[in-house]
């Protein structure tokens, strides 16, 4: 009964989305505002209907209504109530519904207030955004419906999944479900998938703005780009959180000692993040100087296309991944949708190139402008390298007949230098003036950080004589951190001259230039994340030893003693085999570590859960990889020393903090969108906000 209401709400939501798409296009074309207003209301109305659907699916998962095929698929008696709720996005039907729901929420949020600016964009904005929403809702209705039931035809062993009763079939309601994929039974399930989805779906907003601006020719002025910048920032921050949480999850659950494996699904998230980041920078130039317009618009289109592309390659099984989503009928429909999106957007972009002329020429190679161009190029180059590695299995299969997967070494070697260049640019670019920069002044500004970082890297290199490349990496990090800190110090000093105390000066500095100093904080976060990658690339140590009870293994300053092994039934239908070990540093007891191996009985799937002792300098990461069946005599442990990894998580927090500082809406004065944006006069050494 409840499921029927959910199904009806879903269908109504779909019809509303289709209606909004069609009517807004009509209204925009005929310039009849009442149609557009009707489309706007239909869009707003989509949200409550899809919400009803989502709530009912979630409730069915929670109460384990096994008459629904989706509930049987991802829920089970053994799962905790918390996991049953998260199962909403644990399988295909639920996650696509969740996706459509989030997207409709984003679109409605943009349309909530009647627009007093960019009004001409509204009709086609609705058309583009709601077409996408209608597409995803349509997939839920017609292809992967979470309200489908299981049916059984008497006399056969086959089960049919269908929304309506097939002829001759009787309903089949199992006693228990299969439950969520064990890898998904983790606390991370609450954070990583929803934030990632919010990031992916959020990019539809700037994309819809860009397309409607191109369609109406409004791309000539760049007011619209401010609005879409803000929405891009919203999507970007969620995607960033999703990336960090995903890395943390992999580190805690997958048990291979690292946090980033260049898996296709990870790359699928990284690529839109890269182009989205490039857009957020590029758009500053468009706002301030009326330049890089083609770049900015292309980057929006690319970001959105890449998030569709990522969804496509992973959801359809075209490129296999650890995130083994099953193959489905989604593929062909999705393919057509992606094809139309790519080609139509590009065609439109070329058609309207004349509206995207730059208002200024590049005046000097050493200027803020050229730094922005360079960063766009670097971001795009990294994206391309990642893209190539991701589709390489397909390419190689086409050419040679065998799937060749390129591993992490390719990605590390190919993106490492590009990332290094980008980080260097990140530190230096804020020193560049608009239009033209005198090299001598730049040299003076960068001198102290340069000397400081070289001395630091020299000392470090002298005391730790290994991996010469790491000296460079650590120098780079130190240099950039010092450059950023110097920016803060300069700003604070200037205010202190006016008699403010340092803390007040810092608060005022950040308060008055939130975009600028929030940006610096984001940059600091990026450098911290970079530290984790440097540790992973150069300094990770690893050993694997079989130990009898009471024996120890040693790695670096640490030693690990195997004390005991026990087996007990755990929650969520798993058998837990847990080792008790004692960790010593330089002979002194630090703490007890308990690496485990969980075995999910129903799914027959084992899972290796590491025990981690984190410190700012390094993590001790212990895995239980083997044991004797009888008597629990000896067990095999793999131990990693992961230096600097904690900085990655801290960096993630700092990055989010910086974004919040930069993006928090201005409280007092309303943003003067109605005014034509005043062109900023070139101010050497200022700007960057």
């Amino acid at each position, binding site marked *: 009964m409840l499921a029927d209401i959910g199904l009806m709400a879903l269908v109504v939501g779909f019809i509303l989305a289709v209606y909004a798409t069609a009517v807004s296009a009509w209204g925009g074309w005929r310039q009849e505002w009442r149609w557009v207003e009707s489309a706007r209301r239909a869009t707003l109305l989509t949200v409550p209907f899809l919400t009803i659907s989502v709530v009912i699916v979630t409730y069915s998962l929670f109460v384990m209504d096994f008459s629904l095929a989706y509930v049987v698929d991802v829920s089970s008696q053994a799962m905790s109530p918390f996991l049953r709720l998260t199962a909403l996005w644990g399988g295909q039907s639920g996650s696509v519904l969740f996706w459509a729901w989030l997207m409709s929420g984003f679109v409605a949020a943009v349309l909530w207030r009647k627009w007093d600016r960019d009004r001409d964009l509204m009709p086609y904005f609705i058309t583009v955004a709601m077409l996408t929403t209608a597409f995803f809702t349509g997939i839920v209705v017609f292809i992967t419906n979470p309200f489908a039931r299981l049916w059984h035809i008497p006399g056969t062993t086959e089960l049919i999944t269908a929304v309506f009763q097939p002829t001759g079939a009787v309903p089949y309601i199992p006693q228990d479900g299969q439950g969520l994929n064990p890898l998904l039974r983790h606390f991370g399930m609450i954070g990583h998938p929803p934030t990632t989805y919010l990031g992916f779906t959020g990019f539809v907003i700037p994309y819809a703005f860009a397309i409607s601006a191109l369609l109406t020719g409004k791309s000539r002025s760049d007011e619209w780009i401010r609005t879409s910048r803000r929405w891009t920032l919203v999507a970007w921050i969620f995607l960033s959180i999703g990336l960090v949480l995903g890395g943390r999850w992999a580190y805690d659950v997958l048990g291979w000692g690292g946090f980033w494996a260049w898996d296709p699904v990870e790359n699928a998230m990284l690529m839109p993040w890269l182009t989205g980041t490039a857009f957020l920078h590029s758009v500053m130039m468009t706002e301030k100087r009326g330049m890089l317009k083609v770049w900015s618009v292309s980057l929006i289109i690319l970001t959105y296309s890449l998030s569709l592309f990522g969804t496509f390659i992973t959801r359809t099984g075209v490129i296999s991944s650890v995130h083994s989503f099953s193959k489905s009928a989604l593929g062909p429909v999705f393919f057509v949708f992606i094809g139309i999106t790519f080609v139509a957007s590009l065609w439109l972009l070329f058609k309207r*190139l004349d509206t995207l002329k730059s208002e200024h020429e590049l005046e000097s190679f050493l200027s803020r402008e050229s730094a922005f161009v360079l960063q766009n190029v670097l971001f795009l180059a990294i994206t391309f390298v990642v893209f190539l590695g991701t589709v390489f299995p397909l390419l190689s299969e086409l050419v040679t007949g065998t799937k060749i997967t390129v591993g992490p070494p390719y990605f590390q070697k190919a993106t490492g230098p590009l990332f290094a260049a980008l980080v260097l640019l990140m530190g230096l670019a804020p020193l560049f003036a608009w239009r033209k920069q005198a090299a001598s002044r730049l040299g003076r500004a960068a001198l102290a950080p340069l000397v400081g970082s070289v001395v630091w890297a020299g000392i470090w290199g002298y005391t730790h004589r290994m991996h010469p490349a790491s000296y460079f990496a650590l120098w780079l990090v130190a240099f950039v951190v010092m450059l950023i800190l110097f920016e803060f110090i300069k700003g604070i000093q200037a205010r202190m001259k006016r008699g403010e105390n340092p803390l007040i000066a810092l608060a005022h500095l950040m308060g008055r230039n939130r975009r600028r100093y929030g940006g610096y904080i984001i940059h600091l976060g990026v450098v911290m994340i970079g530290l984790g990658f440097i540790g992973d690339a150069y300094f990770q140590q690893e050993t694997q030893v079989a130990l009898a009870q009471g024996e120890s293994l040693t790695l670096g300053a640490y030693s690990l003693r195997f004390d005991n092994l026990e087996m007990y039934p755990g929650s969520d239908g798993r058998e837990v085999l847990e080792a008790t070990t004692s960790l010593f540093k330089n002979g002194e007891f630090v703490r007890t570590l308990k690496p485990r191996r969980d075995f999910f009985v129903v799914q027959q799937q084992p899972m290796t859960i590491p025990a981690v002792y984190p410190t700012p300098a390094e993590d001790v990461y212990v895995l239980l990889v083997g044991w004797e069946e009888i008597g629990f005599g000896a067990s095999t442990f793999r131990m990693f020393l992961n230096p600097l990894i904690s900085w990655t998580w801290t960096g993630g927090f700092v990055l989010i903090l910086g974004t919040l500082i930069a993006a928090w809406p201005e409280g007092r004065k309303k943003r003067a969108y109605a005014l034509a944006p005043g062109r900023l006069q070139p101010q050497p050494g200022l700007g960057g906000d």
Partner: protein
Amino acid sequence: MADLVTKPGELAGQEADVPNRFRLSTLVIFGFVFGLLALLGWGLVQVNSGQVDSGMAPDFTITSFEGETITLSDLRGQVVIINFWASWCPPCREEAPYLEATWRKYQEQGVVFIGVDYVDTEKEALAYIEEFDITYFNGPDLGTRISHDYRMDGVPETYYVAKNGELRGVKIGPLAPPELDEKIEELLAEQYP
């Protein structure tokens, strides 16, 4: 705005210049996009085209857990049953006793059974073989090459190869008596020069 302030002379110069550049970059970018779409489409067709179930059986060489090697094309004249399985797969356990019993029944008549262990760990796989007392040839599908060639979808799947090396169908899901016996009888009855 920029085009409003551009002098007429400049505009003419630009227009002569733009179409050429425009056409080349357009061509390159559209070429790239269409190439990518073609690649994705082809990948999709590959993924969705289902199991290979007719024509010549894709050839492969597999090494057993004991280290013996077998090549499918060397087995012309013999009926070959290729079974994909894994120790972590519950339905495989359902069919395991029936498979082994059928093998013991027909091995005298030259029927070859090849168990292909799909994405598994050796320890668990060997325990499984021991549990069901499996005596026919079994080896891991290293790099999932064989399952990829047969476009296998999941375990268990069983492919029937006739004496002349052609595929004569595939069973998706666990086998139940007497379907394997019937299929083998049918294939044994075929003439091979």
